[in-house]
């Protein structure tokens, strides 16, 4: 199981944000992106998830039992700045939808909606509309989305923003469990996540040079 990023470059608007970033992550490995505000962490994560078409380079996914030319995005869970949950629907309706819409990737199974809510410490309020939760509770529930459907790669953009200390340790434990099951984690963060063996990639932003195409 391996995620390979080869010579990736990406633009935002017209400007090149980073250039020729390459790395490889095997099952059980994790990498943390750090760097100043605006240095391109979110941009890199979106490019790896296939949400932003890279200027050059590619992202390759390789595992047994899947096609060689599968889009890497299909093996990935993406947790962005926004939570991807509907305020009008209840938490369990939201999670249930994502569970069946995303579906499991070959090689694992997601937990049930109830268990996932339990795992992030909010099992008893899963019946509330999502819009009724506090900022931190919403973030936790967004994280629970990663548990209901199994995907080997987790791409996390500041997962711990707005979380209290106890929730941070819960998240760390969940991430470690995922790694121990052979998963891969790629996270951007400003606060240490508490992962021991994580590699670190420091984004430098425009220091790499902005080159206009015009």
């Amino acid at each position, binding site marked *: 199981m391996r995620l390979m990023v080869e010579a990736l470059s990406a633009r935002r608007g017209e400007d090149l944000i980073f250039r020729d970033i390459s790395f490889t992550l095997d099952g059980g490995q994790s990498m943390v992106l750090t760097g100043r505000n605006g240095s391109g962490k979110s941009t890199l994560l979106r490019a790896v998830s296939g949400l932003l078409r890279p200027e050059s380079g590619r992202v390759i996914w390789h595992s047994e039992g899947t096609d060689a030319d599968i889009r890497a995005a299909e093996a990935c869970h993406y947790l*962005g700045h926004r*939570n991807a949950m*509907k305020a*009008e629907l209840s938490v369990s*309706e939201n999670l249930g939808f*994502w569970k069946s819409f995303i579906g499991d990737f070959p090689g694992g199974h997601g937990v049930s909606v109830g268990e996932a809510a339990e795992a992030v410490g909010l099992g008893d309020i899963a019946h509330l509309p999502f819009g009724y939760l506090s900022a931190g509770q919403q973030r936790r529930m967004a994280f629970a989305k990663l548990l209901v459907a199994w995907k080997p790669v987790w791409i996390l953009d500041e997962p711990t923003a707005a979380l209290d200390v106890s929730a941070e340790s819960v998240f760390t434990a969940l991430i470690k469990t995922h790694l121990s099951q052979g998963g891969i984690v790629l996270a951007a963060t400003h606060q240490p996540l508490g992962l021991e063996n994580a590699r670190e990639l420091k984004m430098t932003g425009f220091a790499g040079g902005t080159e206009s195409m015009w």
Partner: protein
Amino acid sequence: MIALLLRDLKLSVRAGGGALIGVLFFTTVVAVIPFGVGPDLNLLSRIGPAIVWIGALLSALLGLDRMFQTDREDGSLDLILMQEHPLALTVLVKCLAHWLGNGLPLVIASPLLGLFMNMDEVAIGATMLTLLVGTPALTFIGAVGAAVAVALPRGGLLVSILVLPLAIPVLIFGVSASYAAVQDPAPFMPPFLILVAITMFFAVLGPLGAALALRNAGD
């Protein structure tokens, strides 16, 4: 996919009833016309099918621009784009949900409005049938506009402008089929079949175009 259909339907019912408002607007548009033309019943029944069709077209526009916008604002669109389902299929399902929530109620309400316009049974039946066949095309065309709107800071009206010119053929053939059913020499089938063909054409082109736009609007 079924999950997506159910979710979208649930949202459209839960959040204040897209069906109701569309129908309400439809009724208003149709009800205002008699003020214009005066109480000339003959004239009313003559322009009836046209007015009903125009009303349906305009009501279909309301709400169309937000088809993908809400999903984008809360980040759901990102996750939808990442899945392996062919994107065009996802769009098709969303169109279906939108039509069930917004288009179908218009079709169901149209006989009532036909009565307002003093149309006879055949005309009412024909108009309803053409609406049933034609409104999905409006949704499919609208999906392209809605997908484009995703990249806009404020979608709204711009979408409708981009969409309306494309919707004109649907209107033309819908109306002429309805008339053909009543006026004798004109045969009903040819314009009706063209309408069916247009709907099928846009059922393919719409989702494909919308998928293309969504992929390219992403950032």
